[in-house]
């Protein structure tokens, strides 16, 4: 009897509960399935990342994870990744389609930062700096790298930058995101047409090629003229610039970094390079004396042209000489050689390197293009690095404040015709300080000094009309001697420098702007195995050319039309000079 009553009560309660439950839970409208996943039912205003990743095809979850079927935020956002392009996530998402690129990026020098680490180690630990304790010197290297250099890193966390206008990192987004910052509630846009500002946000220090290319020279002062009572010419909140002649490629054609630099050169070739020049793919001659090959579909070139959408399909395209990467924007159709700007597809007739005497002289075959065509080079002399062991500072690697603080002070920045030396490629190329570190270490109530004075050769990215013969052959600064007076008496070269390092309080025996003495003694180190200053023999040879240059100043002069014949005639005493 009791069981029967209990049963009846349970039946009534069960029926009521079921009806109420169904009523409460089944009145919701059914979800309209409009994309590959349900994310768009909430994020309907999100636009596609780019035309290659339409949200109608990829949905959201294929890149961001989460539960693509779920229609409730809590369920849908399980295990979701906000920025899948960060390298720790790219293996899981981007690599589904772009595994080869993800592998390359992880070996890329902008990811490994090996160039900075190795040079710092070589300059501060391997070479004589005044710091005898090599272990401590290495600790200084690690500390300096972590607290200064490591901020620029492909996979840096953008959100840790207090000033978001200076934020770097984000993995693939570091380069490929084309909007300044994520707009609230909007999906960022990606592009393979990387705007130059994405490059310059990192490449604006040290050799400063990113700013130099656009004709901006970082000044040591403040930005004038005032505009509306405020400083002008700002690089960022604390740095200012002067307007100088920009690189001709920017000045005349408005080219961006990616118009020359290839995807293999920028994203890496799968090898872990030690220096930037090893990673970089292109040389001037790749465009100005190009090698063309037949354009074939189903190649990387075809993919890149297809992605770009502004560049036509050619008969032939150029390839880089170093890594055989397609320069798909340099095309040959019949006899016409056309260069296309990747940003908008604007076409230019390619200026081929002329066969004028100045390009063909045997005596100049060691010259890198930049040794003559660099209009100026940004030179930052004597960087004062001060280390306070008891200080605290943000560590970009550990991403927290740790012990030790660095202070960087500098005041001697110059733009000038480049000094020359023998570069990493064993060619004559522009040199500038890179880096001249004068270090002061405050440690255990003691003060230690060290200095690591180095000159580095690089392509300054300020290409323009060539320097004159006089500019290289008789200017002491160009020869690497520094600023001062050059005298040549009875074939003996003497040099009187202007700068006196001792008087300026520097513990070095040579002017800070001197790479070499007239005796060919190299004062400052370099960070490349093959790089060096001119030796005495080379200096004499260069300077002694002044005897000819005084009269034969330009290449229009008839002696340059066939220089070998002119030399023979000279040696045989058949010229006016040698008679």
């Amino acid at each position: 009897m009791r069981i029967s009553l209990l049963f009846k009560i349970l039946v009534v309660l069960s029926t009521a509960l079921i009806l109420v439950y169904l009523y409460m839970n089944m009145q919701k409208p059914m979800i309209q399935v409009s994309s590959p996943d349900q994310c768009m039912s909430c994020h309907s205003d999100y636009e596609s990342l780019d035309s290659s990743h339409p949200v109608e095809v990829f949905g959201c979850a294929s890149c961001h994870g989460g539960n693509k079927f779920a229609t409730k935020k809590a369920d849908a956002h399980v295990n979701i990744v906000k920025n899948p392009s960060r390298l720790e996530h790219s293996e899981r998402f981007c690599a589904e389609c772009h595994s080869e690129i993800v592998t390359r990026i992880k070996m890329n020098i902008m990811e490994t930062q090996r160039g900075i680490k190795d040079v710092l180690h070589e300059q501060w630990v391997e070479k004589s700096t005044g710091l005898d304790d090599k272990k401590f010197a290495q600790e200084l290297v690690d500390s300096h790298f972590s607290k200064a250099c490591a901020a620029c890193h492909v996979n840096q966390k953008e959100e840790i930058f207090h000033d978001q206008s200076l934020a770097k990192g984000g993995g693939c987004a570091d380069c490929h995101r084309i909007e300044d910052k994520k707009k609230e509630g909007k999906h960022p846009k990606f592009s393979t047409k990387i705007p130059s500002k994405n490059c310059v946000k990192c490449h604006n220090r040290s050799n400063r090629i990113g700013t130099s290319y656009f004709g901006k020279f970082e000044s040591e002062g403040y930005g004038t003229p005032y505009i509306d009572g405020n400083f002008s010419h700002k690089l960022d909140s604390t740095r200012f610039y002067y307007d100088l002649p920009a690189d001709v490629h920017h000045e005349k054609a408005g080219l961006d970094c990616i118009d020359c630099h290839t995807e293999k050169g920028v994203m890496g070739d799968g090898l872990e390079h030690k220096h930037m020049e090893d990673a970089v793919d292109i040389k001037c001659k790749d465009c100005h004396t190009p090698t063309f090959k037949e354009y074939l579909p189903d190649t990387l070139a075809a993919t890149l042209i297809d992605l770009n959408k502004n560049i036509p399909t050619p008969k032939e395209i150029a390839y880089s000489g170093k890594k055989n990467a397609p320069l798909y924007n340099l095309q040959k159709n019949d006899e016409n050689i056309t260069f296309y700007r990747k940003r908008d597809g604007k076409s230019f007739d390619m200026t081929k390197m002329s066969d004028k005497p100045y390009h063909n002289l045997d005596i100049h075959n060691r010259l890198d293009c930049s040794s003559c065509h660099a209009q100026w080079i940004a030179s930052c002399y004597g960087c004062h690095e001060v280390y306070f062991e008891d200080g605290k500072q943000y560590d970009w690697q550990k991403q927290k404040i740790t012990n030790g603080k660095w202070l960087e002070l500098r005041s001697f920045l110059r733009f000038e015709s480049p000094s020359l030396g023998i570069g990493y490629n064993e060619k004559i190329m522009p040199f500038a300080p890179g880096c001249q570190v004068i270090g002061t270490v405050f440690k255990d109530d003691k003060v230690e000094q060290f200095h690591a004075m180095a000159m580095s050769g690089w392509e300054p990215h300020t290409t323009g009309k060539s320097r004159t013969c006089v500019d290289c052959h008789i200017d002491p600064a160009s020869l690497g001697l520094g600023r001062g007076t050059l005298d040549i008496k009875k074939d003996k070269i003497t040099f009187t420098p202007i700068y006196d390092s001792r008087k300026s309080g520097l513990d070095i025996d040579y002017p800070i702007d001197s790479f070499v003495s007239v005796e060919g003694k190299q004062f400052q180190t370099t960070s490349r195995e093959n790089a060096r200053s001119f030796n005495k023999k080379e200096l004499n040879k260069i300077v002694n050319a002044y005897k000819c240059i005084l009269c034969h100043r330009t290449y229009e002069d008839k002696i340059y039309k066939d220089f070998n014949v002119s030399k023979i005639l000279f040696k045989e005493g058949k010229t006016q000079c040698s008679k």
Partner: protein
Amino acid sequence: MAYVISWLSVALFNVSMLSGLIVAFVYKPDIAYASVQKLTYLIPYGNFFRELHYFSSEAFLVAILLHVILEILKIKINIDQSSWNYSLFALLLLFFLMFTGYVLKADLSGLSAGEVSLSLLKQTPLLDNFLPLFQDNSMFVWKFYLWHILFLPILLTYAVYVHVKDLKTKYFIVGIGITVFCMVVFAMPKDIPLDTVALHVEGPWFFLGAENLLMLGMSPMLVDVVIAFPFLLLIVYYYFKNYRVVINYLLLIWAALYAYFSFI
């Protein structure tokens, strides 16, 4: 009390079987996870039936365990040896059914549980011969699926029928009511997407003790023994009626230890 638990168990069994029949129409073993997610979020009433199946099965297992406890605590065992053996067989089948169901949801925890169980089987002498009955290299869930929707339900239904003689369908509505009550009070565990990384995953609650013992370094064979221990005791239970108290204590100690290792 024992009687109410008994018929409630049968009612819940009926709900579990019928709701399972409904969700089986949607489940596709070749796209297991996706089909479960579609059932949960996209198919009209899909989640209702999935929860109905889940909670009725869980409640059935709990009711059966209560039923077993109440039966062995009785002064005298009322059933014959054959019926006892069928009951034990049904209990074993039920755990298998619950476990295969857990694997079939095919999320990270489901598939991980499947992997762990196959590894256990593989590393246990004699039992490793049964591996081909569960392992399918081309479609991981395929044989679990066959067991779950075909062999085990048929065998369990038969064993339950032999045990109770009457499937008590008049209690069906109460079974649904209790299940819906569980749906209101408890939350079904969230599915863990397959590409989740660095997240702790767990098997079904009755498997946690075994998982933790494995993590503590116990050999797989010993873990098998731990899992089989209560079943072995129940098998010999009928033959050693005179030592029921001892066996009951042994079962109690095992349950306490297993519960302890489940929660550490």
